């Protein structure tokens, strides 16, 4: 049990609601280990038919972008229309682009 002030570590829960869809973040929970986290996730997030598959990830294993670096990370494509396929005009005779 990795203790941070004596409590269980935090895990992130991803639920896939049906075949063909991707896993979506549903929330988080505490559990002593991965196996118990999976079971707790089943009790907390799938008891009303919400899903057919669960992924559990240790919160500390998630590397997240820094909200303060939003500008540098996400805004650079602004004004770079050529990055969007819609910027180009379709060539003559191309029907199904």
């Amino acid at each position: 049990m990795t203790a941070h002030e004596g409590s269980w570590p935090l895990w992130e829960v991803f639920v896939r609601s049906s075949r063909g869809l991707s896993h979506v973040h549903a929330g988080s929970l505490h559990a002593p280990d991965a196996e118990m986290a999976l079971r707790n996730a089943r009790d907390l997030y799938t008891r009303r038919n919400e899903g057919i598959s669960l992924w559990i990830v240790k919160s500390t294993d998630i590397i997240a972008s820094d909200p303060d670096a939003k500008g540098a990370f996400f805004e650079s494509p602004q004004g770079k229309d050529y990055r969007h396929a819609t910027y180009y005009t379709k060539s003559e005779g191309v029907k199904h682009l």
Partner: protein
Amino acid sequence: MSAVDHSLDSFGDATASATRVTPGNALRPEDIAIQQEKPNDAVARYAVRLGDDALILAQRLSHWISRGPELEEDIALGNIALDQLGHARSFLSYAALAWDKTEDDLAYFREEEEFRSLHMVEQPNGDFAATIVRQLVISIYQHLLYTALLESSDETIAAISAKAVKEVDYHRDHAIMWTLRLGLGTEESARRMRDALDNLWPYVGEIFEDEALHAELGDAGVAPSTLRAAWDEEFGAVLADAELSVPTVPYAMARGRRGEHSEHLGFILAEMQVLARKHPGATW
């Protein structure tokens, strides 16, 4: 039960049947309560035993709600309590048909000596280890029982068992996971597990005692003694994995099946029945 066709019209709605057990659309107590097919007296008395075990265990487990060691575990035990309550409702609804009563009549308006539950399920929650040992004992037993009852000649008993067995499979998994973690955990957690095993072992004997009723039931029920060998094997294997040993303390004289209960059941019933008895017919 005879080969009466009640595939379509004997339940709550046109698409229901006694063997309908698809997830999220399983046989409900409400369907059972209005079905035409009644159990014979022996099957009804058998259903009372199964229902009473589940009902008293549900009542016991629900006391963990808001008291669990962690929020997540609180919810896990609450879910297990709800599953058990669901099984109890189905079995008692079915039994009640035989005597023109309702599930509520049986749950709330029977006296202590009319309950047929095992002493094991009325044992106090104790510490978390005691609850886990009780769950390990009962969930392995119920899993074997409901698996065997899938073959019951009584279609409703088989259908209720088909729904219950999947839920109990999870209860068993939950109990095994915790037994391993507590047994192999700290010195203190292993000590508490050993204490719980010694304290609860006296009530294991009663679970597997056959009664005259089981012979009367024929293929509709399962004689508990026939489950003992498989239970011993599974229970022993889990304990071995958890580095715990099967206790050697003797069995207690437990006669819950005859209505002779420990001092605990009266308190459980007092709390469970007070509202229904004070305000008969109350709904919300």
